[in-house]
């Protein structure tokens, strides 16, 4: 009798342990996944809407962006690495806009994780970021992706009727914008 109870306790303990590990694990977006169908607030600036090719009422989704490939920078105004590499993201944008084979096809958007509109706007002005930055004040990204370590770069390509498929997702710094773009370009061409 006592032994039986002990065994059932152990089984219960093992169960509790395994669920806690599963729930505690960091879920991150994997290559091949379709980017979560999250709706973001429409950017206030008309040039941002124009660049992304979005409009109308309500919010927008990554799938609505008029592009073949979208590079998404998950950042925070409060993150030292994001601050340091802001000039590199500017460079990334410049290279795309100057490259005939990328311009119009590749777009960049920054999402300020757990940042307010004010904080995102402050970051944009401070570092003269030329591409759209939006805030994720409600933490919808972390809710669908798990905890985000900033900066984190995601690239998606539009497949089967505008589904954003993840071709790249990594936490860490953008060290060389040109090499990064070459890599994303190659990944976007893969069958």
């Amino acid at each position: 009798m006592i032994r039986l109870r002990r065994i059932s306790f152990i089984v219960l303990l093992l169960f509790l342990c395994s669920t806690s590990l599963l729930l505690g694990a960091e879920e991150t977006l994997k290559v091949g996944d379709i980017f979560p169908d999250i709706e973001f607030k429409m950017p206030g600036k008309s040039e941002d809407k124009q660049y992304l090719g979005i409009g109308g009422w309500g919010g927008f989704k990554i799938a609505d962006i008029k592009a073949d490939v979208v590079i998404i920078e998950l950042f925070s105004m409060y993150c030292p690495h994001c601050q340091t590499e802001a000039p590199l993201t500017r460079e990334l944008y410049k290279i795309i806009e100057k490259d005939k084979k990328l311009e119009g096809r590749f777009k960049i958007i920054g999402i300020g994780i757990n940042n307010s509109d004010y904080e995102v706007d402050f970051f944009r002005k401070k570092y003269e970021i030329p591409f759209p930055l939006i805030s994720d004040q409600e933490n919808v990204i972390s809710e669908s992706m798990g905890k985000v370590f900033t900066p984190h770069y995601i690239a998606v390509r539009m497949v089967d009727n505008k589904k954003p498929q993840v071709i790249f997702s990594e936490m860490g710094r953008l060290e060389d914008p040109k090499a990064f773009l070459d890599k994303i370009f190659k990944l976007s061409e893969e069958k």
Partner: protein
Amino acid sequence: MFVSKNRGVITILGFITIFTIFICATAYSESGAFKGSIYNPGKLKPIDSSLKVKIGDKAPGFTLPAIDGKNISLNQFRGKKNVVLSFVPAAWTPICSDQWPGYNIAKEIFDEYDAVLLGITTDNIPTLFAWTNAMGGVWFPVLSDFWPHGEVADSYGVLRSDGISDRAIFIIDKNGIISFIDVNDINVRPRLEVIVDELKKLKD
């Protein structure tokens, strides 16, 4: 029989506690700059202190050592600068490590409103030195309220029962009067605009 049952129950309770800690330990984001160095205390009681000052009071004076080896006194800013006190709970913890780096790029806001920012924790100087260096250094004075432990935090009423301070912002005008108090949920970073809006009011 009874002994074994009790022990079992205690073990299960223990595991449930660990389980709860696991699922609660979720800050939404964290700077990659500190990855691997941040101690996660899990979700804490939002506020664990009670204020001893109120808006309109004369701010309690203090002199504290800063990480650059100098002492900073509140009264040295009297008649010259507005003072923003940012108490954060502890070095090397999740939200705090993602709060001061934001202020670090916002010096112009403080300058614009004729304000100084003083960062305060109850950690000792070497810890604060190493931690702020990991941020790449900060422009504002970082003060240690380590000894007598938490005396300044306690004089404002933001010292928690475990010796760390609550996450609080006090804005003190040039006359040394407290014009704004925000004791935030310790698990949440206050918005930058909260400080800016208040500084704007002092200017007007």
